[in-house]
């Protein structure tokens, strides 16, 4: 099976305190730790496991700046066979549809049976997978937490509300967005990273992608981010200050009063 996985380099929200720049144009990016989008890591692991079971190849592709090479390499260290970066200043400011359009141009140049994305990325949209499927006119399933290959079809589980799972049969080729927890992504050690450190990652720009500025980039975006902001949120929590010991005393007092200690 020929599998393509779309991966994105994002600020790691578990590792960073994200703050907004004073003028609201962006988040503060100095000292921010980046990593591969959490969901994409599960998608790459799933692709590798399917390949190892039924044969084929795994390609990872990312739309981003030159620094996205590092996450493409990381996913290759995990076991992806090929990695490609799609990068051009004309891509900057693309909305979800723009990114999906750029990815489509890459998909059109190959022949893939299965295309995986993450269910969600840093801007919390969960849109690129569904848009890519629609652009390619392929069937789509989102928030997938189980895949079983059955000939030219897949049995896929979608995670729905309440921890329930919706089982579907979907024909190949198709696009799936992958939910965390579908597998346990393998660990990539220093040695693995070193092996791929000098790999050349091919990079395609807008001409190689055969795109003109129509719907890509900021000019083509139907949805534009005007500004980042931090809202006035009223009171919020009453914060307990002091030394750890004082905090612990106070917490116990409060818990007792609220019936939290039996």
């Amino acid at each position, binding site marked *: 099976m020929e599998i393509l996985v779309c991966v994105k380099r994002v600020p790691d929200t578990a590792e960073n305190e994200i703050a907004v720049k004073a003028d609201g144009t962006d988040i503060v990016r100095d000292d921010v730790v980046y990593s591969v989008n959490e969901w994409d890591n599960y998608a790459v692991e799933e692709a590798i496991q399917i390949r190892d079971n039924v044969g084929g190849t795994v390609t990872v592709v990312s739309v981003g700046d030159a620094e996205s090479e590092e996450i493409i390499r990381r996913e290759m260290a995990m076991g992806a066979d090929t990695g490609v970066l799609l990068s051009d200043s004309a891509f900057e400011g693309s909305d979800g549809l723009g990114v999906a359009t750029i990815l489509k141009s890459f998909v059109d140049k190959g022949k893939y049976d299965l295309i995986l994305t993450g269910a969600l990325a840093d801007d919390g949209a969960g849109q690129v997978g569904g848009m890519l499927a629609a652009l390619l006119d392929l069937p789509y399933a989102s928030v997938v937490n189980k895949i079983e290959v059955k000939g030219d079809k897949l049995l896929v589980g979608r995670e729905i509300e309440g921890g329930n799972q919706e089982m579907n049969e979907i024909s190949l080729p198709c696009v799936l967005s992958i939910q965390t927890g579908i597998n346990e992504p393998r660990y990539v050690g220093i040695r693995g990273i070193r092996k791929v450190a000098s790999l050349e990652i091919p990079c395609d720009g807008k001409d190689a992608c055969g795109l003109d500025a129509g719907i890509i980039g900021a000019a083509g975006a139907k949805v534009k981010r005007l500004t980042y902001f931090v809202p006035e949120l009223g009171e*919020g929590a009453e914060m307990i200050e002091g030394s750890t010991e004082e905090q612990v005393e106070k917490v116990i007092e409060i818990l007792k009063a609220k019936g939290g200690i039996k």
Partner: protein
Amino acid sequence: MAAQIFAYIAHKSGKLDDSALELTTAAKKIDADASITAVVFGDAATADAAAAKAANTYKAVWKVADSALAYPNAELIRPMLAKLLPEGAILLLPTDSFGMDLGPGLAVKRNAAYIADAIDFEGAKDGKLVAHRQEYAGQVYAKVEANLSGGAVITCRPGAFAADEAGGAGGAVEDKSADAGPVPAAKRKFIEVVEAEVGDVDITKSDVLVSIGRGIESQDNLEIAFDLAKAIGADVSCSRPIVDAKWLEKSRQVGTSGQTVKPKVYMALGISGAFQHLGGIKGNPFMLAINKNPKAPIFQVADVGVVGDILEIMPELTEKVTEMKG
């Protein structure tokens, strides 16, 4: 010209989802003068039941019924909606597993703008709509502007817009099945829903929950949480990453894709406060949050907060409580 706004009515066998009453509030925020129409899909019986209920809140209800629509399969409903909706229409959906499935592709098929997971609107003006949303796991907010020239598909966060409980709209139900049909051949077939497994503790019945998130850092540290729970007489629950890592069973996960809990006291320990997590906490419990990041969104919803390291504070809490109890 006032916008034409449609609210997709999610329902389970005719019983309306909470979002059904929230989307009308969202629609009015987009445009107070808009004509708002509820759209209901289902098989004959469930579509009738849901449409009748929706007519309490919406003056106009469009019903699409077919035996193939007994279960809401987005791959079937998307092309039907694409055909049914008038040009330039705005469609509202809930941000849930169905809305995420249907929405992005529908926006592409209709050449419409897509706004994911809106939490507020500044109103439509001059063919543009400004919406508020969250990014970076809720740590920052963003204003986005959508060009409405081709209409829009918008998912709205559950709970972000107040439910319109007024009722009594006396809406008219119109059967639009012929305009939307026929049901297309599906490349994705719904088979069945597999219900979540029941675990060894039922956190939905707990009065006090010690709930841990990624801040617990390793499986070995789980003991610290269980010790604290034991000392204060609580049960241990968790956020999703703990279940993803297989450190605790799925039945202990709080959130939209886990359990809905209604405790008296909820301790959120090393949990950032994603809306999918908070969506599983009902009944307005007293919430105490401990997190090392003072900007963590959990502090916006907690009653009391401590900025600190849970791995340091939890053992001290356990020790003090144990001492106190003698």
